[in-house]
């Protein structure tokens, strides 16, 4: 073995190839099968895609680096499940390009945040977290309320998402801007199209409390309220588990 190496280390190209082969094996074995083994991601036929407004909110979440303090992944540990709810399934982040599982928790996990608080609570909390939770170290995000949401390019966003595999229809892409405005403006005609394209269960309301404007706050709160609610596969699975255990 050492003699072989003695020869190998005299040829730069061969050495380069050897490094590439040896280093690639781990990734190939661990990553490639994740795309081919069916059990990796559960089936969830009822799952819906993000509306343009929620997607815009998600992009604000990314822009502000909320993931630097919050995870979106409830682990299969008793502590996690008792605090946050049923543990996260792979399918729940199927439409997350990129995923936002996070890597640390300065603040709590947000995977099942949707519906936990009212919109008013979120708006007040994002503007001044310490007014509601005095010991919080979360930054104030007052400017979200002041900035108009840029809805112009949302069609391009949906189109790019479709290219990477999210099933947006042509109608969704065409109406992306109108749908974003409509979801946050319940009184406008545009609101109807949102329910038509994304389902009756879609929440349509002014998330920031000001129906005259569509702000970044609208988008972010719409996103926070949908977290964990694109599918109820996790609840169904944990419910079934309890029944089997005889509860």
């Amino acid at each position, binding site marked *: 073995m050492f003699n072989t190496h003695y020869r190998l280390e005299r040829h730069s190209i061969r050495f380069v190839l050897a490094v590439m082969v040896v280093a690639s094996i781990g990734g190939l074995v661990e990553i490639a099968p994740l795309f081919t083994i069916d059990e990796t991601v559960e089936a969830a036929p009822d799952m819906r895609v993000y509306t343009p407004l929620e997607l815009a909110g998600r992009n604000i979440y990314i822009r502000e680096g909320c993931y630097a303090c919050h995870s979106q992944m409830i682990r299969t540990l008793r502590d996690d499940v008792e605090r946050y709810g049923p543990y996260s399934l792979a399918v729940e982040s*199927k439409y997350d390009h*990129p*995923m936002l599982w996070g890597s640390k928790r300065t603040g709590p996990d947000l995977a099942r945040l949707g519906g936990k608080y009212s919109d008013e609570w979120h708006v007040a909390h994002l503007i001044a977290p310490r007014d509601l939770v005095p010991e919080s170290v979360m930054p*104030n995000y*007052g*400017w979200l309320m002041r900035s108009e949401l840029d809805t112009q390019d949302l069609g391009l966003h949906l189109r*790019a998402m479709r290219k990477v595999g999210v099933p947006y229809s042509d109608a969704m892409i065409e109406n992306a801007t109108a749908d974003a405005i409509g979801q946050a403006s319940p009184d406008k005609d545009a609101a109807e199209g949102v329910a038509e394209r994304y389902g009756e269960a879609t929440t349509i309301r002014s998330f920031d409390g000001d129906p005259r404007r569509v702000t970044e706050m609208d988008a972010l709160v719409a996103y926070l309220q949908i977290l964990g609610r694109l599918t109820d596969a996790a609840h169904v699975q944990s419910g079934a588990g309890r029944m089997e255990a005889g509860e």
Partner: protein
Amino acid sequence: MVAGLTKGERQLALLISIAVAFIGLAMAGAGQGGAFGVHGFIVMAFGIGTIFVVISGYFLPEPGDERLAQYYDDPIKFGIVVSMVWAVFGMFIGDWVAWLLAYPEMTFDAGWASFGRLRPVHTTAVIFGFVGNALIATSFQVVQRTSRARLPDQLSPWFVLIGYNLFCVIAVSGYFMGLTQSKEYAEPEWYADLWLVVVWVVYFLLYLRTLMRRREPHIYVANWYYLAFILVVAILHIVNNLAVPISFGHAKSYSAFSGVQDAMTQWWYGHNAVAFFLTAGFLAMLYYYLPKRAGRPIYSYRMSIVGFWGITFFYMWVGSHHLHYTALPLWVQNLGMTFSLMLLVPSWIAAANALLTLNGAWHKVRTDATLRFMMVAAVF
């Protein structure tokens, strides 16, 4: 710096600078005042800056052929100085971010000053700015001396260093403006990633060309590690950053992968970017500077081989240990855990090899502060 370039290289440098300035102009036009446009102006300013530098030295006398008898060390000095600047900046931001965790009101109601945007500024500035520049600069020094060969030309090392720092500047300025892919240690958007690929290919070719000119029959251990650093970082960077931009005039892109596959790819990248920057790169430095300073040969040739291939092979399996108890399939988690334990063997072999090299030089460790730092570093 221009004085060391030949006439042909000066012309090429001028062409590249002009091309960069025009790319910047195109980006600025497409970005229409948005963050992408700001990046366009930064790129353009960079290009114009280097145009001025080249022109100001354009008519200096050309370097004579006697230069070929010496190592080419000018870019190394530049790289080390830039690395130190990044260190000061990066650690200042680190300190600032730490204070933000105690006094969150210091965000001053401004997006750019909030924790979520500044944290990647810190990690990128220290890992890519401080460490990256130090690795590139030392690699130029080590490869020349262990190969007894001068770098093959004068322009490529400058291109690599300056181009790499353009990448770092784009990355860091982007976070302030909220441009990020959110993937840890791979935050820069698609155009910065593409630029880094160009820089990295030039770096790899430069390194390989120098090795091919070597006047030593064998490639020395330090160069194995530098090569692994260059190659593996290239593989990781390209795969993890696969993304579809919403258009060529926008900064935003969507990752090619989603959910569980994206998480695994990200931590395969994230763990190994750290591994091949902060471990392989530094072992490369260690294998040259430690024996040199101690005045002792490396303790064991065989331990070097086992340590190197063990690290190169095992390290690439362990990323999944960042995803324990998540929705990642259990078999991948188990593989990651197992290989993490196995990785202890080559890591300790490499460390032991370093410490045993000091046998016979311990009296120097007692009096030589530099060597003492190296010893402590090897232990860690």
